[in-house]
């Protein structure tokens, strides 16, 4: 279905889309309100740079992080991703779609009684590994899962 595909492309944008968006909007607007917003991380174009911005370079794989996401997503504009961390004292969870033009999608700081669990929906431009980067007890751990993106529709 072509309308869906068009919509998908428009709403998610391509690589150029994200770059242009950042150049035109965020970077110059100076109206970034969230004080702790990780500008360097959200502007990073490579996984390694994202990890660096999070201070997570050299993080180790952990089986205590579970990524719940579809093997195949019908609609790349809405890919559900839930992260469960069983690591003691989970402090932060980030979701990174490696092949997105700007891979870092979201970071969640867990405080107080918050559990090591978040669920969200992200845009993905193409089939890619989705990474969970978890800070627990001051150390960084990762897990990843591939999500295949097909542009759904019947046209």
């Amino acid at each position: 279905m072509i309308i869906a595909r068009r919509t998908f492309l428009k709403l998610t944008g391509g690589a150029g889309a994200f770059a242009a968006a950042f150049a035109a909007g965020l970077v110059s607007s100076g109206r970034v309100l969230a004080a702790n917003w990780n500008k360097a991380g959200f502007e990073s174009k490579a996984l390694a740079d994202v990890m660096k911005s999070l201070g997570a370079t050299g993080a180790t794989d952990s089986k205590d992080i579970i990524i719940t996401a579809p093997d195949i997503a019908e609609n790349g504009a809405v890919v559900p991703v839930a992260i469960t961390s069983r690591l003691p004292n989970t402090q932060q969870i980030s979701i990174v779609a490696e092949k997105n033009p700007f891979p870092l999608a979201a970071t969640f700081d867990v405080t107080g009684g918050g559990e090591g669990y978040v669920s969200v929906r992200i845009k993905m431009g193409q089939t890619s590994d989705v990474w969970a980067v978890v800070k627990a007890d001051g150390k960084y751990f990762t897990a990843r899962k591939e999500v295949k993106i097909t542009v759904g529709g019947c046209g």
Partner: protein
Amino acid sequence: MVLGAPALIAAGCATFPDSATTQRIAEKMVSEDFTAPTPALLKRLVQDRSQQICSKIGDARLTQEEAAEVVKLARASIQYPSSGKLVGNWKIGDDLAHDGAGDRIQGGRLEKRKENGGLCQNCHALAPDEINVGNVGPSLTGYGLQRGNSEAIAKLTYERIYNTWAYSPCSNMPRLGATRHLTPEQITHMVAYLLDPASPINKR
């Protein structure tokens, strides 16, 4: 559970319209309830003889005579490319097989492209590694591997795409050439895509 005619109708006080009355009412809707940018496009709703025969309601069966008529009309409809060559370029055919666009009408405008997509991916499994394929029609994976690429197979394949009703009267598959959705030349590319040993559809 398969649905039948509404048995509850008997319990009501209205009368069951006979099929001629229903047809009259419904055809009036068809003629009044659709819009198109041009009168010619509105004519797409007009059925040809074969479509009339193939619009069986519910469990109604095609009679042998009807099937024979559909086959006869289909056979007569088939035209071959002026070049006489039935096997084109499989790469073009590959693109066509994965193109589902063209000729739709929305917001008072016709989706006009140089040529229409072949629609294959919507209904058929294609190359072995493809996920985003339909299953309304049978899998075409390995089509050429099973059949070879003789002239006879090329002709059969061409004809089945051009007007599949010549072989399977009233099947769900569109008569892609006969309805002018595709040109004869486009169909030769799809034949190549199905038969060529180098085509992804014949990857082992």
